[in-house]
C-alpha cells in the first residue's frame, strides 16, 4: 500500500525534496477524492489548502457576468492546485470544480505556513517551487490575454 509520504515524495512538484521536509509535509497531508461536479473551493473563500493532483481533472472557473462561468484553465495529474494559501490575504481567486473523478493529496496551508515561519529553509524551498508555478501561469495568462486566434 502506498503511504502518504511516498505519494508526496513521488509527486513531480516535490521532486528531490529532502526526506526530512517530506516527513514534515506528511503531517499536514490527507488523501482526498472529488466526484465530478464537486466544487473544491470557490472564489472569495478563505484559502487554507492546496492539492497535489494524482488523477482526474479540475477546472478553474470564474464568473464573467454571463449566465455561466468560464473555465480559464484545467489541471490534471501531476499538477498543483492552489497557491492563494501562501500569499495574504489567503483568499481563493477562482472556483475549482472537479470535471472527472479526481484523487489528490490535500495539504493544510495554515499548518504549513506555521512550519515555514519556524523553519525558513523549508519556507524558501516552498517559495522556490511555488514561484515556478506562478511564473508559468503568469506567462500563460499573458499569452491568453493576447487572444492570438481572434480575427484581426
Amino acid at each position, binding site marked *: 500500500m502506498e503511504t502518504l509520504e511516498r505519494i508526496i515524495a513521488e509527486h513531480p512538484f516535490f521532486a528531490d525534496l529532502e526526506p526530512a521536509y517530506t516527513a514534515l509535509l506528511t503531517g499536514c497531508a490527507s488523501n482526498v477524492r472529488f466526484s465530478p461536479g464537486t466544487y473544491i473551493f470557490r472564489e472569495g473563500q478563505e484559502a487554507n489548502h492546496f492539492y497535489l493532483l494524482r488523477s482526474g481533472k479540475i*477546472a478553474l472557473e470564474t464568473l464573467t457576468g454571463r449566465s455561466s462561468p468560464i473555465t480559464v*484553465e*484545467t489541471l490534471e495529474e501531476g499538477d498543483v492546485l492552489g497557491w492563494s494559501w501562501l500569499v495574504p490575504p489567503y483568499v481563493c481567486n477562482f472556483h475549482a470544480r472537479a*470535471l472527472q473523478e479526481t484523487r489528490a493529496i490535500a495539504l493544510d496551508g495554515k499548518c504549513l505556513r506555521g512550519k515555514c515561519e519556524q523553519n525558513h529553509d523549508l519556507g524558501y524551498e516552498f517559495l522556490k517551487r511555488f514561484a515556478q508555478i506562478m511564473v508559468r501561469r503568469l*506567462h500563460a495568462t499573458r499569452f*491568453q490575454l493576447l487572444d*492570438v486566434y481572434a480575427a484581426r
Partner: protein
Amino acid sequence: MTAMAAIDTISPAQDPRLPEPYVVKRVDQDTPDTFSLTLHPEGSVKPIPFRPGQFSMLWVFGVGELPISISGDASEPNKLVYTVRSVGKATHALVSRGAGDQVGVRGPFGVGWPMETARGRDVVIVAGGIGLAPLRPVIYEVLGNREQYGRLVILYGARSPRDVIYRKELSAWARQRETQVLTTVDYGGLSWHGHVGVVTTLFRYARLHPSRSIAMICGPEIMMRFVTRELETLGLNRDDIYVSMERNMKCGEGFCGHCQYGAHFICKDGPVFPYQKIRPLLDKYEL
C-alpha cells in the same frame, strides 16, 4: 545532407501566372466562420501534385486572389482541399462558393514541411487556430506511411470550443497507434470537458523525446514564438524546429516583393522555414 537541403519543392507544371479552372465539389463547415472547400480539376486540367505545407493562389473571379495553404492529402492530388476562415471580402466570397462553382487555382507554391528529414523520427506538430490546416497534410502523410516515422504528437490550441477545426479527425487521430493528440482551448464553457489553457500548457502532458523529435509549428506568429521558446526549454535542437510563416503573398514566385521577410520571400523561400534560419527576424518589428 543538411536539414535545409532536404526540403523539397514542386514547381507548377503549368505557367504559374495562369490560373487553372477547378470546380468546387463540396464545402464543409468546420466552425461558424471556417470552411473546407474540396476542388476538382475541371475538364482536361491535369491534377497538381503538391507537398505538405505548400500553398495555392485561389482566384474568386471578379473578387480577387488569395494565398491559401493546401489542407488535403498529398496522396490524392486530384482533390485539392483548402480550409479558409472568412475574415474579409475575398475570403467571404471564397467560402460562399457552392458545389459546381468555379475557382481558379495557381500553384502549388513554396517550400513544404521537411518530410524527408522527418523520416525515422518522432514528429511533433504544434498548431494554433486555423494553423492546423497547413499541417493536416503532414498528419495524413505520417499516418499513411506509419512505418516510416516515429511517434506522432499533435498539440492543438484554439480560441474556444466552437473554434476547434477538424474535431472528428482529431478524435480519430487520437485512436491511431503511436499517436498522442492533445487539444486545448484558451477559454472553455461548462460543456467543454477537455483541456483549457494556452497551447504551451499542453507540453506538460505531452510524451516527448526531444533528442529524436522534429517539430513543425503553424499558427499566429506570437504563438509560434511562445512555442519555440518552450520547445527549446524542453531540449529540442533549434535545427529540428520548423515554422510556417504568413505574409501577403501575391505573385507566388518571389517577383513582386509583397511577402518579403528580411532577405527572404515567404512565397518562394517559405512558407515553411527552419526556425534557426529566421529566428533573428521573429523579434524584429514591422517585418
